[in-house]
């Protein structure tokens, strides 16, 4: 290592020490604990993992979380890409529109909770609007429809973020390709399917992963609106971890964290590969 590169390492060192002290080393301890018995110090092998997998709350939550991701992720991606493509062609008010889409990023979950209650209550505004069309409303927060409210919250919060990501990707497609296609008589739809979609693939991967990871944050809304034990359909992994934490079930929590970590690391490695390809 040359003198110069040693200087480079010194720049990183203070931060690295902090990361190790607050995250890496204790996580090592968590991995160790995931193989230990809850009481005493005996080695438990894979018992904790078996316990987690046979835990009803965990399975319900894992299923719900998966289901949530499977519904909201494609929905968000399609909507935000659609908006991004339209926005790129927009002449008037482009920047103001873009900023407006980003505003939810600045609104803390705690601030919208009261609002969500007023809108989605059994006698709330949404049902008021629906009843106008002679459709009977639901008690959105206390029925299976709570899932829909959560999907809505997620889309509302992340639409602008994804639009900005897509636009960054769309800017990278040379205008000349579109011009050539138009000269050959391709319409807007053809341009979209044969030029935009294939060319945006590398960015798409990034958007998918970032959106997936952002989906863990809807827990805030779910928690604020419905508390620790919400309607069954919106009982998410985050609730399980929270409840294990308050019960101090360190064994289950440790095994659960390790499992979740493994799943996410796989995702992150995939993301990394897509970034590398870009270079």
């Amino acid at each position: 290592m040359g003198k110069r590169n040693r200087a480079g390492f010194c720049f990183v060192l203070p931060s690295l020490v902090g990361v190790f002290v607050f995250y890496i080393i204790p996580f090592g301890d968590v991995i160790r604990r995931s193989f230990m018995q809850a009481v005493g110090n005996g080695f438990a092998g894979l018992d904790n993992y078996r316990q987690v997998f046979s835990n009803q709350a965990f399975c319900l939550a894992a299923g719900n979380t998966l289901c949530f991701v499977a519904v909201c992720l494609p929905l968000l991606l399609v909507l935000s890409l659609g908006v991004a493509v339209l926005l790129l062609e927009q002449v008037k008010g482009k920047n103001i529109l873009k900023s407006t889409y980003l505003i939810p990023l600045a609104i803390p979950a705690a601030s919208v909770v009261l609002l969500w209650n007023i809108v989605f209550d059994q006698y709330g505004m949404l049902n008021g609007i629906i009843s106008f069309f002679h459709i009977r409303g639901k008690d959105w927060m206390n029925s299976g429809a709570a899932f829909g409210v959560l999907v809505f919250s997620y889309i509302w919060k992340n639409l602008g973020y994804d639009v900005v990501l897509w636009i960054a990707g769309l800017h990278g497609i040379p205008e000349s390709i579109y011009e050539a296609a138009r000269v050959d008589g391709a319409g807007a739809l053809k341009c979209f399917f044969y030029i935009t979609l294939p060319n945006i693939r590398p960015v798409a991967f990034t958007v998918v992963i970032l959106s997936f990871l952002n989906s863990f944050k809807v827990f805030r809304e779910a928690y604020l609106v419905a508390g620790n034990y919400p309607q069954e359909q919106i009982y998410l992994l985050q609730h399980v971890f929270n409840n294990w934490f308050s019960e101090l079930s360190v064994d289950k929590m440790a095994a659960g964290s390790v499992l979740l970590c493994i799943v996410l690391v796989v995702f992150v490695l995939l993301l990394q590969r897509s970034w590398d390809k870009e270079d």
Partner: protein
Amino acid sequence: MKKILQNSILYLFALLEISPLIFLFAGTFMGNQEVISYIAPVLKKGDGYASWRLFPVFPTLKNIAGLLLDSPEFFQMFWNSVKITAAISAGQLIFGMPAAWGLARYSFVGKRLVYMLYIIMMMMPFQVTMLSEYLVLDWLKLLDTSFAVILPGIFSTFSVFIMYRFFCGIPESIIEAARIDGAGELQIFFRLGIPLGASGIISAMVLSFLECWSMMEQPMTFLKTKSLWPLSLFLPEITGGNAGLSLCASFVALLPAVFIFLAGQEYLEQGIASSAVKG
């Protein structure tokens, strides 16, 4: 025809995204009586459905005055939020900025590994690190102090990543020229790195401000004493009794975030876009 459709889609989404803000803004200047008359059905005190108005019939500053003058807890929590956010941002500048510089501009043994580690850390949701953070904070005897939220926040690697992306974009030739003129590594960092990477640094700060301001999971888990809570955690506590006041509080709570958002929106966009394509 196509233009009309495009405009209506774009503005409809914009309206959807911004409506909670408008809603809260209107509520801030309503009297209690007026608020209650609109949401009576939700409070199970009236017939029909909840409704709302864009402009209060009887605009008043009573609630906002009451909040700012007569609720010492609100001030306490507001101050806590400011303190936590400021401390984390300052810490990220001191530790994260050099780290980003080191990772972006030097090659030392293990750099690739450190970079990967940072990316993985950045992607982990709180649930994965919850137990490990708890263990280390317990060991350091920091639980139930503001440091329990601040210290792990400082070493969150997201801001390092954003700054890294921007530092990478500085042309090597400029740095090389400075080196030939005899500038030391520290001098290069302070005289060239920071000014040329300024937009990345600001982007990272804006993003982390918004993140910290609405932070919920960490204080909820690590702070038992209510007088230490940030505003984001305190707000739900006051939603029960006084609807007018809590609307008002919700609005005041999001104001600082919206100000930062408006002041730094150009940087915010750049910051988000930098994770999709190289800045």
